[in-house]
């Protein structure tokens, strides 16, 4: 169908998300992007943040890592190194991961290690951001 989008989110571990949606919001490297059906074919990069999939007025939130997005008129395919649905995010664990990563960054690290740790930090921050949006009292 042309007035729906198939949103696919795939990580090296598994296919996290595969559903028909009305609209998708992506954390593009140059700012947030909203994608509606019949978009022109686009290849873009995303930074870690939140993806919002809207279907019939209902929003599904996911935290994603850095990655690439392929957009065609009927499909949005996100390839990323992390994708977690909002309901699967463990706030305590994410908070711990953030602290650990921040502490690690204080130490002296090789470039490779620093990049990995920084990515881990961004992952946990993205998860925290998604979770907090729904429940601001945390």
């Amino acid at each position, binding site marked *: 169908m042309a007035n729906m989008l198939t949103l*696919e989110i*795939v*990580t*090296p*571990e*598994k*296919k996290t998300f*595969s559903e028909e949606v009305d609209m998708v919001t992506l954390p*593009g*490297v*140059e700012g947030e992007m909203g994608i509606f059906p019949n978009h*022109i*074919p*686009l*290849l*873009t*990069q995303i930074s870690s943040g939140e993806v919002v999939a809207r279907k019939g007025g209902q929003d599904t939130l996911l935290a994603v890592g850095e990655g*690439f997005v*392929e957009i*065609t008129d009927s*499909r949005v*395919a996100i*390839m990323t190194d992390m994708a977690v649905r909002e309901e699967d995010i463990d706030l305590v664990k994410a908070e711990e991961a953030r602290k650990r990563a921040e502490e690690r960054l204080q130490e002296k690290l090789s470039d*490779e290690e620093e990049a*990995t740790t920084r990515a881990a930090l961004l992952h946990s921050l993205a998860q925290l951001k998604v979770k907090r949006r729904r429940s601001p009292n945390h």
Partner: protein
Amino acid sequence: MPSTRDLRRRIKSVKNTSQITRAMQMVAASKMRKAQQAALSGRPYAELMNDVLSQVTSNLGEFSHPLLESRPVKKKAIILVTSDKGLCGGLNSNLLREVAKLDPDRNTLYITAGRKGSQFIARTKRELTAEFQYSDVPAFTEARALSKFAISLFEEGKVDQVDIAFTNFVNTLVQKPTVFPFLPIGEFRSFTGDVKGEDMGGALETNSLVEYKFEPAPSTVMGSLIPHYLNFVAFQSLLEAKASEHSARMVAMKSATDNAKQLIKDLTLEFNKVRQASITQEILEIATAALAV
């Protein structure tokens, strides 16, 4: 006729061997499950990436990237992914035979991952440039080191083509030696396309050819997408190789255990026959002695 003592000794030694092979089978079986899971779950990502890149590169227009350009092949390199240890049936030898076929005049550089491959290169006096290691649970960083090295060889013009040879995991009983083109990225072939049997988690449908827009600029997106793709191909190859290795080892060890069991059975039968014969002999001797008295 062998003596009972010799037979008893042999039975004991076969029993010990079967205990070892059974233990190895158990270890391989538990590792196998994890490795297979990892290999299979990486496939949808690999497929999607392949899909996107083949779409994009067929419609690039003006844009080009050094890693996309094919040039006349004077020198080739092969990344050889094997296991570290043996005792896994014909796994490594099948792959190495395949590789040897590709390189009859020995004009190829080799980059190896896994000790068996390095040993093969040394034994056949081929040219080894680098030797990488990968752990039981392949890490992405290990794959990145591997592909980084291959990319630098290609960029410096030392080689004009890089292939990656590994064992593709089909199922527990079947592993397929595969040689997959790594660089330059030209013709796209499905990474798992010729592997049937396992479900890839729903193949994603391909679209008709369309021209893509890029955001940010094509050079930025492709500049990070292409190395990432190569890293991922290397990573998936390591995963497939590991899954194949543990499956092959499990099967090899299972048949070794079964053979040992059969051997013990035969030897026990033999042992009983010998024992019985010697008892009969003794009775006969006593009976004739009694008669003589």
